[in-house]
């Protein structure tokens, strides 16, 4: 008994020490919180950004709602790439973000996806009795989840599908549920499956859900960071936009909102 408690205390102590030791000490680096759906493109953008400016980006991935909460609790992020437009605006209004730095960096697209060929054919796939589980991400915390719910409601299938829905904490997990075969189909971001050749997919028509405008904001902690500001400029530039489009997002003309 005692050994277990001691062991766990020791492990906790070690974990705590490791956490302290890992605080990075780069002068020209920026900490960026990134909505999970934008994981792949932002990695490529970060590499291009580093090649061009020498600035390093420290990327964290998660659900937008989770990041919002963390930022209001003094998380050390300097830039926030959200999966929606509401949260960056809210952060700017509440003083956690820098005013007039909010802009749309990408417009996300929703797909219904299966890892097997021939499974997803269109909206009728959602009505098939053979489908036992449909994965989505948490609709209150992640915009892609909200868009998935809107789509099912627009198709008048939501009540029918509700018992079949399984929720991932974020879009990566929703994708994982389908990838491991635990759910036959799932609503994921087009960017996640754009390079998937073996599966099947249905591009959800844009009129079934509100556009997923993904906004970025410079946070108060990054107000004086050259790297953070340079990154946001770079994100608006042609090099980034080409990468963003390649991953299946639409790009709007950048404008401060």
């Amino acid at each position: 008994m005692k050994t277990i408690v001691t062991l766990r205390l020791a492990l906790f102590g070690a974990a705590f020490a490791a956490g302290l030791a890992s605080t990075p000490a780069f002068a020209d680096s920026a900490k960026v919180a990134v909505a999970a759906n934008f994981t792949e493109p932002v990695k490529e953008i970060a590499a291009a950004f580093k090649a061009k400016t020498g600035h390093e980006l420290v990327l964290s991935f998660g659900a937008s709602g989770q990041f919002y909460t963390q930022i209001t609790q003094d998380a050390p992020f300097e830039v926030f790439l959200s999966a929606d437009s509401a949260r960056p605006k809210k952060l700017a209004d509440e003083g956690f973000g820098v005013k007039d730095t909010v802009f749309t960096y990408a417009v996300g697209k929703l797909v219904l996806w299966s890892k097997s060929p021939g499974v997803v054919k269109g909206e009728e796939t959602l009505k098939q009795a053979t489908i036992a589980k449909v994965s989505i991400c948490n609709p209150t915390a992640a915009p892609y989840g909200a868009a998935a719910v809107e789509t099912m409601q627009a198709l008048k299938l939501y009540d029918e599908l509700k018992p079949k829905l399984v929720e991932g904490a974020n879009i990566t997990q929703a994708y994982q549920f389908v990838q491991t075969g635990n759910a036959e189909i799932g609503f994921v971001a087009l960017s996640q499956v754009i390079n998937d050749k073996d599966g099947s997919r249905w591009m959800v028509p844009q009129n079934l859900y509100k556009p997923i405008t993904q906004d970025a904001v410079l946070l108060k902690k990054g107000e004086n960071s050259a790297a953070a500001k340079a990154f946001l400029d770079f994100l608006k530039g042609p090099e980034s936009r080409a990468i963003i489009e390649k991953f299946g997002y639409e790009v709007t003309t950048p404008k401060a909102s």
Partner: protein
Amino acid sequence: MTNLPPDIWQPVWLTIELAAITTVILLIVGTPIAWWLARSKVWWKEGVAAVVALPLVLPPTVLGFYLLVLMGPDGPGGALASLWGGRTLAFTFGGLVFGSVIYSMPFVVQPIRNAFDAIGDRPLEVAATLRASPLKAFWTVAVPLARPGFLAGAVLGFAHTVGEFGIVLMIGGNIPGSTKVLSVAIYDYVETSQWREANILAGGMAAFAFVVILTMMMLEKRTARIRG
């Protein structure tokens, strides 16, 4: 208590149900394992002990990942699920029970094994000379003597199942009434900035953990007194 979501208590009951079922299964499965670990003389037994103890050290995400793969349609869990027409064990209450049993196993087996170890050979030899069958000696000598170990195992197993988070998050699918347990509900409330709800549940968890540790300390003190 106005304005609380009507379903705030559902995860609490679900969690208690999960922890209770897991604890009962672990007492049934864990006792023979603990007995074997305490009594057996084979050289590879510490290897088995190490496997049982793995969840102490493994991150829940490792277990969650393997469980997600094992339970899926391509794994043994999927084959099992097909017996009643399912495809996967993930996203089901049964799947959570299975994951919890693995996760909480060391917390039950270890205290019981220690208690069996502490008895030593002598009382069982005495029982044998009095012509008690091994089974009878087990039930009438070993189990009563190891009672504090069983108690500690049950309390710890229950408490750890209640507190489990990573695994249920990874294999649960957050389904209310079926896989949305307390820790996931708290995570959800925090993620959506519902502080009050998060506070109520998290505060309750903290109080519960305090009571568990206090109980364990008192149990240990009593055991020490019995052993003199």
